[in-house]
């Protein structure tokens, strides 16, 4: 059973549709025991860094997320769900992230050739042997929608990078903690393979 952590985030429905399509069992929940009893957990997210963390704290999910991760069971953050795992974001100065891993999120600098938000298909340059990207060719294309990007402190946590004027740390893999800045649930066959790789762990 996969627990999808329910803190009123957007894009939950599209993640659910992808899991249904792949025939995976899931539960959408903010119940502490239900999350901790699950084999895997997914933290989705679309919206602002502050709103998301306010809700996570309102529903007392911060400790639940950290306890789940400490249990070494597979955990996947998607889009904003990746950013929340780090220390802070320029989107919401002064708001503390979950600090599961060290790093900061910065605004993508706009220029003549770089429009913000970063919307569309971009390639991922794989940085290490990874479980999440098993069977996925280097430089595969995935779908992005975001204005802030992660700079992880520890380069060994970075599973994939993406170039968009700056180097985006577009996927994270640290023990049982996995995260994607892009939307695997909107990235066609490549994305479904990534989700399948996670659910098969």
């Amino acid at each position: 059973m996969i627990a999808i952590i329910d803190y009123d985030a957007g894009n939950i429905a599209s993640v659910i549709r992808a899991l249904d399509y792949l025939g995976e069992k899931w539960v959408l929940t903010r119940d502490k025991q239900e999350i901790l009893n699950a084999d895997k957990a997914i933290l989705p997210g679309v919206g602002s860094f502050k709103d998301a963390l306010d809700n996570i704290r309102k529903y007392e999910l911060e400790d639940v997320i950290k306890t789940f991760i400490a249990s070494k069971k597979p955990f996947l953050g998607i889009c904003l769900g990746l950013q929340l795992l780090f220390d802070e974001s320029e989107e919401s100065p002064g708001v503390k992230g979950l600090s599961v891993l060290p790093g900061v999120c910065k605004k993508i600098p706009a220029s003549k050739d770089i429009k913000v938000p970063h919307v569309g298909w971009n390639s991922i340059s794989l940085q290490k042997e990874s479980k999440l990207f098993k069977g996925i060719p280097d430089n595969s294309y995935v779908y992005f929608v975001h204005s802030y990007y992660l700079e992880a402190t520890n380069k060994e946590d970075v599973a994939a990078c993406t170039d968009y004027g700056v180097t985006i740390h577009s996927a994270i893999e640290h023990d049982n903690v996995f995260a994607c800045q892009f939307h695997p649930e909107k990235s066609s066959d490549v994305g479904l393979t990534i989700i399948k790789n996670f659910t098969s762990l």
Partner: protein
Amino acid sequence: MYTKRIIPCLDICNSRVVKGVNFVNLVDAGDPVEQAVLYNKEGADELVFLDITASSDNRDTVVDMVERVAANLFIPFTVGGGIRTVDDVKKILRAGADKVAINSAAIMNPKLISEAAYKFGSQCVVVAIDLKKRSDGSGWNVYKNGGRVDVGIDAFEWAKEACRLGAGELLITSMDADGTKKGFANDITAMISEAVDIPVIASGGAGSKEDFLDVFTKGKADAALAASLFHFKELAIKDLKDYLYENNISVRR
């Protein structure tokens, strides 16, 4: 590499895909879900569904169609046609569309753009602008109601205003070029694309691979949309992308 997007547009009437030329002599062209899945296989980067159902009685059927598409299609898709209120936007997004395209309603009530962007995020608000060159050549005017009515406002100014109000993308359709198969309107597309900092999707006039190359180079478009060219199999998406790649345009292949 960040890529230029190729977007097939499917015209929908009473939850069926229809094909025709300039919305006349419509023939049934199959089930939207089957067509969507096929386009995904062929390498489409996104899809746009344009609901041209005439009767408002049948408009709720589009929600059911969006739900069925969303359960089977795992690339982004936009739904447009007849979206008038924030509640319409909510219904379509909740059914599983990633974005909505707003056209006439945004012209009549520009606040719809900002309200939808505030509630659901700019990323899901596509403002569609149908435009036509003024007869004196001094610029382009915005048209509404499927390109039939001249609104009398300047398209370049409206594009910038839509962006300021919170649109996440612009879908620019040239009524002069639409249906001609003689190429996109690269002049106004480039003008708008260079003036706004959100992606611009060019539409209308695609007739050949070269037209797509031109709209990405001369037209500065971020994405290009076509309907009949892909429907009638005059151009395969794979061949188009191979051609663009050979001409140094970054595409997803």
